[in-house]
């Protein structure tokens, strides 16, 4: 098992290096095919790793109890010293929390590579783009599987630079200054956040004397004030930039609006999850008391994010920005779920993580398709009546919008529902009345979410076809689009009707 994990970590990196070693003249098509094969292999590997047991090591005090309850918590463990002087170890493993996210990462990367077979940014240089995507994949999988704070930090950072390049080089070709600015803002804010996070890690190290997550989880840093609180605050702020939590979200709309389609998909589908994963994996188990002290404030910001994100969407005129802002709202739900510290909330957050990755990935693919066909993502320039011009894409957009607004029966619902359920009954140490208020506001946020998605459908898909004649060259859903989107659509429906597929993985957190 551990060989598979090491394999899916190393394969994309090595493949990317090999790809750069090959002369640039191999052609875009071949590079994309190469990327598809590699990421396909990673996907297969990640599916082989899929855990067959329940349980999570985090809330289980000792190894003995684990064995008694009959759950195998960590799989594919590799634990070797890395920087012995600092006590840093190369400790990677997977469990049921990280596994779905790893599979999601592998899937989205695979889909992005497949998509690049036919549809690539106008700037060209597909070979480098594919290589960067593979590096991102390796970094993200590394972050999801690392059981050491420093290793997590390193992987967290590895992802940034390729993403910065992706936005900077392959971004919106009409606006070089804007895409450079967006990329810079993205990388600067995220680096600032991760610097704060590293400080928090160091404080944890000072208190506990180890960077190892397994040890830290089993003997957490207790105390809700002083140094633990400072550490929790630093880690939370650092991760909140990545999530992004209001008011640290400002990099997100720009980055998404300027990024190429595959960049947006990976950014929204995978990179944002690093933040929430960090909150669940590090903040909650390692600093439980401090997190409890902080949780109501975190929940407050999350609630503001839900409302502010939705309101901002209502006033957007750019389809990619709109979807980006919708991410702010959805990630707000996830953070709210985490900050309830209850089982339902955490389950909800984990579920919403996956669902958001799938649905928003699909939405960004659709937005990219619409943008490619009209050479702009501005709603007013695109015009209306997409149902008449591009009926299949319009229909899929409506489907994805409905999924994203949390329609029961599609994947988006269960996460939000469980989060709200968690807010209805948060952990015992938290002020319940406050959370009830948050729950009601968040519930109204879902109505606002519906409002802006319906506005999008109304302004884009519906309308009088006579006033918005079809462009001559606009073709409806192409085969490659259908192939690449099909897994996302299928998963959206599958997880919607059978949430247990994921929920039972997590057992009792």
């Amino acid at each position: 098992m551990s060989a598979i994990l090491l394999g899916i970590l190393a394969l994309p990196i090595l493949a990317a290096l090999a790809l750069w070693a090959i002369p640039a003249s191999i052609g875009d098509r071949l590079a994309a095919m190469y990327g598809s094969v590699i990421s396909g292999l990673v996907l297969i590997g990640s599916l082989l790793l899929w855990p067959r047991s329940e349980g999570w090591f985090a809330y289980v005090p000792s190894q003995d109890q684990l064995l008694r309850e009959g759950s195998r918590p960590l799989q594919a463990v590799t634990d070797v010293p890395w920087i012995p002087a600092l006590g840093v170890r190369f400790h990677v493993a997977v469990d049921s929390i990280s596994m779905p996210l790893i599979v999601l990462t592998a899937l989205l990367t695979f889909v992005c590579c497949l998509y690049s077979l036919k549809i690539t940014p106008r700037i060209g240089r597909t070979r480098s783009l594919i290589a960067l995507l593979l590096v991102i994949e390796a970094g993200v999988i590394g972050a999801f599987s690392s059981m050491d704070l420093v290793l997590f930090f390193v992987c967290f950072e590895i992802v940034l630079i390729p993403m910065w390049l992706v936005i900077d080089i392959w971004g919106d070709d009409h606006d070089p200054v804007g895409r450079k600015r967006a990329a810079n803002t993205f990388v600067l804010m995220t680096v600032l956040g991760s610097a704060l996070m590293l400080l928090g890690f160091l404080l944890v190290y000072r208190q506990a004397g180890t960077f190892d997550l397994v040890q830290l989880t089993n003997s957490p840093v207790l105390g809700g004030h002083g140094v633990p609180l400072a550490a929790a605050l630093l880690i939370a702020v650092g991760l909140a930039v990545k999530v992004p939590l209001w008011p640290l979200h400002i990099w997100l709309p720009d980055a998404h609006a300027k990024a190429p389609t595959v960049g947006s998909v990976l950014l929204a589908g995978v990179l944002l999850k690093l933040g929430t994963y960090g909150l669940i994996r590090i903040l909650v188990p390692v600093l439980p008391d401090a997190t409890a002290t902080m949780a109501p404030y975190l929940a407050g910001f999350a609630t503001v994010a839900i409302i502010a994100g939705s309101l901002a969407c209502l006033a957007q005129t750019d389809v990619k920005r709109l979807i980006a802002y919708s991410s702010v709202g959805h990630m707000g739900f996830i953070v709210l779920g985490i900050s309830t510290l209850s089982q339902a909330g955490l389950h909800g957050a984990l579920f919403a993580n996956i669902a958001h990755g799938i649905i928003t990935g699909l939405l960004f693919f659709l937005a990219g398709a619409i943008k490619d066909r009209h050479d702009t993502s501005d709603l007013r320039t695109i015009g209306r009546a997409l149902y008449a011009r591009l009926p299949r894409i319009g229909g899929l957009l409506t489907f994805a919008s409905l999924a994203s607004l949390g329609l029961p029966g599609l994947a988006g619902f269960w996460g939000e529902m469980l989060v709200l359920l968690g807010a209805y009954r948060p952990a015992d140490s938290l002020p319940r009345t406050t959370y009830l208020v948050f729950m009601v506001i968040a519930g109204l946020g879902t109505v606002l979410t519906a409002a802006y998605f319906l506005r999008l459908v109304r302004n884009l898909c519906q309308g009088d076809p006579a006033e918005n004649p079809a462009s001559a060259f606009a073709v409806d859903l192409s085969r490659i689009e259908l192939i690449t989107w099909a897994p996302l659509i299928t998963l959206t429906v599958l997880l919607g009707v059978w949430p247990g597929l994921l929920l039972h993985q997590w057992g009792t957190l």
Partner: protein
Amino acid sequence: MIATAWRVAGVGFSLLVVLAAGLLYGVSPDQAAFLNSSVGDLTIGFAVRTDDLTVLMLAVVGVIATCVQVYSLGYLHQRAASYHALVTLFTAAMVTVVISDSLFFLLIGWEVMGACSYLLIGHYWERRDARSGAIKAFLMTRLGDVGFLFGIFVLGLGAGTFRISELDPAAISPGLLTGGTLLLLVGVVGKSAQVPLQTWLPDAMPGPSPVSALIHAATMVAAGVFLIARLYDVFSASQTTMTVLAVVACVTMLFAALCAMAAVEVKRVLAWSTVSQLAIMFSALSLGTTAGRHAALFHLVTHAAFKGLLFLCAGVLLHQVGSAAFVVLRRYTRRGRLRKALRVTFVTMTIGLASLAGVPGFAGFFSKDTVIEAAWHHARDGSVVGWIVLVSVCLTAAFTAFYCMRMWLWVFFRTPALAGALGAFEDENATADLDEPDTSKLRDAPWVMLAPLVLLAFAAIALGYVDGVHLDWVIASVSTVLVLLGALPAYSLWSRGADPRPVLLEREFGVGTAYHVMFVVPVQLLAKLTVAGDRDVIGGYVRGAGRAGTLASQGFRKLQTGNVQTYLTAAVVGVVALAVLAGVIGS
């Protein structure tokens, strides 16, 4: 090709529902759970059940859906594939609601119905009113659904289960019970278009008429009534909730009936009448007695028949004439052609209206009487709620008779008044009434559309007798008098060629506008404010940080003079300072 497949699938599915209802009839109640997963101490998953209520609703849904699907074969040719697919999904969602034994499973059906209604109302998305009507429908029901979801939380966590059959009102503390049922009621109010979330239903009329029939007769709005009937034990255990329900229902039935009296479009009249009739069902439920529940369900079934019929008739008018507005229909009527050309439609619609109005002998009469009777028995036991319900239902019966009569006369008959009552509906240009439409091509709809009409017309009479006729003659005669009291003024106004419409009623009490001003405008303002805030406040900090960095770098750049000696001086000073520092720290 695809369209044909979906047509077949749609009709087949609805027949399957009917078949299922037939097979389940008489089967002893049972439940089954599947796809469960536990979250902490809660179990979240799906469950189905079968009992009398399920079978009854399945039958209603199946029959209406079959009628609608068949009718649509003739009615709709544009974008038929997506239409039939959505109607099928819509039916399936309602079936889900009906057979569900898990609150979450129910919620899935509940909200998927909302989404389907949104998509179907927006079927003619070229039209502005269809677009806004669709959005309004979805958002208002969604708002109610938030309350519904919270209600599920309260009740589910209170009872420790999300299974409907295991929800025991005795196990839930009274406070939670009242809170939970009130929250569920919010969802019901949204779904069934009761006050104060009533405005979406009349605005949903731009959708295709068969869809309206489906929404109004068997699915969507009926789901609210069904839900309370399903959770009747829980609801009736909370007196507060039942009182609130009664008040909401009574206000709604009068409000909606008044609005219907001033509406000038067939479908809008019918929409308001649906709101009003649903309120009658809710008022019966709010009595909290077995008789009340029975009366409500009885009325639900008869209402499904005659309301489905009426909407399908309106569809024929729309399909054959091109409009269902009084002002257009009357141009045909004045030549006397409409009644004669659309003979089947005229007859069936007359039956439907008679049933709706509660003319003795028709199904609506019996079911409404059951409601009045239940209310009377409850009132006689000294219940204030009973009295309120009784009075409101009686008033509503009169109002209903008024607007049914008004519509029937104005649509199908030439007024005996001078000049054919020019300008009764045409406000701006009275002489436009004199335009002579070409009536030569006017003929009745194809048989696929008429067959459902005939079937439903039969049901609109016969359903009154399936429950066994047990009339309280006093109540029957009182309600007959009420019908007459309502119908006579309508007749006299018509015969004088006048149709006074109070502004307040015509504008539907200004609720829609008020909501727009109260909610939509502030939200839009807030949205602009948020974007501006993001750009100028939060973005301002980020930009400020960037600018501060730039400024600092410009400042530091001044230090870089290019003079090597300066650099060296600084370096030596640095070394000295560090040495001093080390000495200080070391000592």
